């Protein structure tokens, strides 16, 4: 690709990122699992068309925070969320909000690729069908192709759309899951360690995909790989013991972080 256009696109994206307000705003977010408090008054805003990486040691609350963003925690009975989270200014914990619709707007990709045990085509078409996004078979075909194209998987699977999604390689399965998330035209994509079960080549493909998706979507990614956070994100938030320790530009975060705990964590030192 032409270097100039690439740089120009980057610049335009950065501009857009600064112009637009926050896509999601988390204010004083606390999460309790029964008696145990997992998150302590987290204030974290997610910028539009930006990849935000959440890092921190295991059990620090980064996945918990991620899951509050599309109310995944609702599925856990003992879980209670306080504080306020908005999507384009609307409180997503408002009782009037339709959770199914919310999850269509805020999609999720999990650690382990989890395609439905159905054909590749059906994996993608399932979401659009239940949300009534396609009026005809042709419509649906288009959605399936566009989603697979975006996920960089089309060329690899276009001749075997009727084969089972579980027959793909791990990396392909994960990109299928990303295509499935994209199919319902979400605005935000949450990714919970999307590459931890993938080999380096599949990881690179997914990272390349994340980089491209940034122009159309807002992405929040939880990762244990510091290098991955440094490679794919523009903003990084560091969690520790349920608290948000520091949120900063990724470039600053990995060269000269403000907080000592961030410093110790990313350098692999004892805290």
């Amino acid at each position, binding site marked *: 690709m032409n270097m100039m256009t690439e740089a120009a696109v980057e610049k335009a994206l950065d501009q857009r990122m600064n112009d637009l307000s926050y896509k999601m705003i988390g204010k004083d977010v606390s999460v309790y699992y029964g008696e145990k408090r997992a998150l302590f008054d987290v204030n974290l805003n997610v910028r539009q068309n930006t990849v935000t990486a959440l890092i921190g040691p295991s059990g620090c609350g980064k996945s918990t925070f991620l899951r509050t963003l599309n109310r995944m925690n609702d599925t856990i009975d003992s879980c209670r969320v306080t504080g306020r989270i908005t999507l384009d200014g609307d409180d997503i914990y408002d009782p009037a909000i339709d959770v199914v619709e919310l999850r269509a707007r805020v999609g999720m990709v999990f650690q382990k690729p989890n395609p439905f045990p159905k054909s590749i085509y059906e994996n993608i078409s399932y979401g659009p069908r239940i949300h009534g996004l396609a009026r005809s078979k042709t419509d649906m075909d288009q959605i399936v192709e566009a989603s697979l194209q975006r996920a960089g998987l089309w060329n690899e699977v276009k001749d075997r759309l009727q084969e089972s999604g579980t027959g793909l390689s791990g990396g392909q399965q994960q990109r299928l899951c990303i295509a499935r998330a994209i199919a319902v035209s979400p605005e935000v994509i949450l990714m919970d360690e999307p590459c931890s079960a993938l080999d380096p080549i599949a990881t690179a493909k997914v990272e390349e995909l994340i980089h491209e998706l940034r122009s159309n979507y807002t992405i929040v990614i939880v990762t244990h790989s*510091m*290098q991955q956070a*440094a490679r794919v994100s523009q903003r990084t938030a560091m969690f520790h013991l349920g608290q948000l320790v520091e949120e900063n530009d990724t470039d600053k975060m*990995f*060269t*000269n*972080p403000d907080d000592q705990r*961030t*410093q*110790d964590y*990313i*350098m*692999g*030192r*004892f*805290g």
Partner: protein
Amino acid sequence: MSSHIMSAFDEELKYLNRRISEMGGLAEQMCADAVHALVNGDSALAQKVISDDVILDNAEREIQEKAIVTIAKRQPMAADLREIIGTLRIAADLERVGDLGKNNAKRVIAVQGTGVPRKLARGLEHLSELALVQLKEVLDVFANRSAQKAEAIRQRDEEIDAMYTSLFRELLTYMMEDPRNITTCTHLLFCAKNIERIGDHATNIAETIYYIATGAQPQGERPKDDSSNTLGAVVE
């Protein structure tokens, strides 16, 4: 700072630090010896300086290789990354310092015929003392990573520049007095310039240490008092 979870990483960083200290010690010794050889016409000592430069060059190469392997293996972040990149830069500066010392040593033979006039010898010695103090102190600061002291050393390069300018003027005077001085004085001019640049490298190292310690570049222009580039523009 607390140690790494992987203790082998700490060992690698310590090793790089030790090698830098060794390089620094050798570079310092070479520069001192070169000036000593120059003012005393000691060609054996000059020969030693020339052969020591090989050791310094090899040390720099070794540090480079080790640093690259460490980066590839550990993917260092933040202060660790700055430290390793800083190490590479300091090693390069010290290697240059060695080259400048060696260049001075090479001129010993050229000036042997006439010898170095007493007064000029004293000037060169003084200039070299200033530069070597800078170098020695900056290496001490490297060991304790004080951004404050690094900044202080950076401010002092001015003194060397001023001394160099006055030596430059003096050498010009000698040459004008008697054209037979020109060969020796031209060599001494290069020697003085070399020494002045050793001071510059010490200042570079101070800036690198400041960066390692703080993650920021030192603020403001480097103080300079080298006006030799305009000297003699109008000769009266």
